[in-house]
């Protein structure tokens, strides 16, 4: 009888996660379509659809298929990757502060990118490569520092904050030494932007995300197993350290790929996990987290591009303004901590 209750509860939860995921996916798709229609030239949705299937005139066709469509796709891919990455970090470390943008991984990407931009004067793809390498490097150093017969939550976050401090200092120093125009360019990259992201970027980020996301969802099994505690997990045959390392590698890779493509967009990784968990009624909720990330990113980009008549902002400026109040509301209304 007890087993029956547990099984029913689990099924109920799975149904809820499923419903939430479908709802989020639908919302994401709706925002995606809106982002194709709105812009400096407002293109009505029927025209958008026609353009996507080949017809439609040259000018608007170009704008839809070469500017807006890849941009929206990059937003979805990067947002999903960041949301997933944040959710895994937060679950693994059991600390909501343990998001890649707080514990130095995106700081590593930023430092590497800023050095590439300001010291070596590079632009475009080489900067993305530097960012990717920087993220992986920072994560590796952090892990090595925090490892002491295993990695404890607090130690990892502390090492991460230390690294973030040092790397942020490097960034600030470079910004003071460059001339103001170059420094402003670097600031633009550091904010995280989807501007002028074309099919070239989709081709860079797409394969990475397409490979990592399914792998991560599969590895999500281990995450649930690790939640019950290391000893119990070992009893059930889970190789705890291997599982943890594997999940960390995947989470770091997701964050690195996203950051390399669009820059360190703040807050998406941090806020997706808690929101997804709240919507799914507790537990880990990886797919909802990815979808929340994609939704926040695309919604933020639509706002960033269209909210101000005379200018557009990088998406990284808006993500916190979109996600922050919701997180605060969550904090104010939750009864239990975390």
């Amino acid at each position: 009888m007890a087993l029956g209750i547990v099984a029913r509860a689990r099924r109920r939860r799975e149904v809820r996660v499923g419903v939430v995921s479908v709802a989020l996916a639908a919302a994401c798709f709706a925002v995606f379509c809106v982002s194709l229609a709105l812009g400096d030239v407002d293109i009505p949705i029927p025209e958008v659809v026609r353009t996507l299937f080949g017809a439609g005139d040259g000018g608007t066709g170009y704008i839809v298929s070469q500017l807006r469509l890849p941009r929206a796709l990059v937003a979805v891919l990067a947002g999903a990757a960041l949301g997933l990455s944040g959710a895994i970090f937060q679950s693994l470390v059991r600390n909501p502060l343990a998001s890649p943008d707080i514990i130095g991984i995106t700081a590593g990407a930023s430092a590497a990118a800023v050095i590439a931009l300001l010291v070596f004067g590079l632009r475009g793809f080489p900067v993305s490569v530097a960012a990717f390498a920087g993220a992986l490097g920072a994560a590796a150093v952090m892990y090595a520092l925090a490892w002491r017969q295993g990695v404890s939550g607090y130690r990892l976050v502390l090492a991460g904050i230390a690294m973030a401090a040092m790397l942020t200092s490097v960034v600030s120093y470079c910004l003071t030494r460059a001339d103001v125009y170059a420094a402003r360019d670097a600031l633009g990259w550091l904010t995280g932007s989807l501007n002028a992201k074309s099919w070239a970027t989709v081709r860079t980020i797409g394969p990475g995300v397409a490979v990592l996301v399914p792998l991560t969802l599969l590895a999500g099994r281990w995450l649930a197993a690790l939640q019950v505690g290391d000893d119990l997990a070992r009893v059930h045959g889970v190789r705890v350290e291997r599982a943890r390392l594997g999940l960390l590698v995947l989470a770091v890779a997701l964050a690195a790929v996203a950051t390399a493509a669009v820059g360190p967009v703040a807050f998406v990784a941090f806020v997706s996990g808690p929101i997804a968990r709240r919507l799914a009624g507790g537990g880990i909720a990886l797919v909802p987290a990815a979808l929340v990330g994609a939704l926040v990113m695309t919604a933020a980009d639509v706002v960033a591009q269209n909210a101000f008549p005379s200018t557009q902002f990088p998406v990284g400026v808006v993500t916190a303004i979109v996600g922050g109040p919701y997180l605060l509301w969550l904090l104010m209304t939750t009864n239990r901590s975390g």
Partner: protein
Amino acid sequence: MRSSVRWTGPVSLVLGALLVAGCASDADSAGEPGDARELDSPVTVEHRFGTTTIDTVPQRVVTIDLQWTDVMLSMGVEPVGYTVDSLMPDSTVPWQDLPEGATALPLDDGVPVEQILALEPDLVVGSYSISDQETYDLLSARVPTVAGPAADAVTPWQELVRTAGDVLAEPDKAERVIDSVDGKLNTAARELPQLEGKTFALAQYIVGDSMYIVADEQDGSSLFFQELGMRLYPPVLAEGERTGDTRVNVSTERSDLLRADLLAFLVNGGDESDLSDIPGFDQLPGTVAVLDYPTIVGLNTPSPLSIPYSLEKVEPYLGDAAA
């Protein structure tokens, strides 16, 4: 958990479908010909992303970056769109007389490709702001686009004017513009022969921090003063060569590096009175010229319009320095 495994399949399918759909619509659509006047022979411009060939005289020009806006305005062309430099007070430069109907393009999120294409230009010119291949490709697929030289190189403003002259089929006008500006500098040099051999230094003082002194002889501001017969203050030049910086960072304790005959200062985060923060400032031998931000920009990014403006601002101090 089992639920996440069950979703792996559908998620991958959706991602794959999106990518396939995307690749399918990755075809370029051809640009449309305008009905502008053809050039006698096509003009080819080389830049960091390759070469651009221009066949017809452009009617609708979008200028990105200050220098190009100035160059086009000095050639009598009114751009349909120009980028604003948000460093300036009110985002306008004092020496520019911008056309009323043109669109001011903000660079807050990089080059606004969609906004530019919405203006339906037939030529886009820019220098350092068109900085990566992706932006260039997106623009040049629809409109001939000229970018700047490779990253560290600076194109002398005279070359930009000559390029504009070729593209607009008015090479004589280009030469006249260049001669008039050079003429002003030569006149100033002739009127103050004692400037010959005097030293200069251009510095920015960050109030509450340190100073940054220009140590590059090829910087726009250095070229300006050199054309008047002056030379860069040797200790600063030596420091620049030692560190490889175009702008050397100098603590306020080192006022010994400020002993040039003409010391041009920009005070960042304060006013003239803050210069007394620098120990030994009152004992500096040279003439101190406290300049404002637009003047400094005019010196650093010279153009046919900015040089006369900066010259006017600097002239009183030149007289003092020559004495």
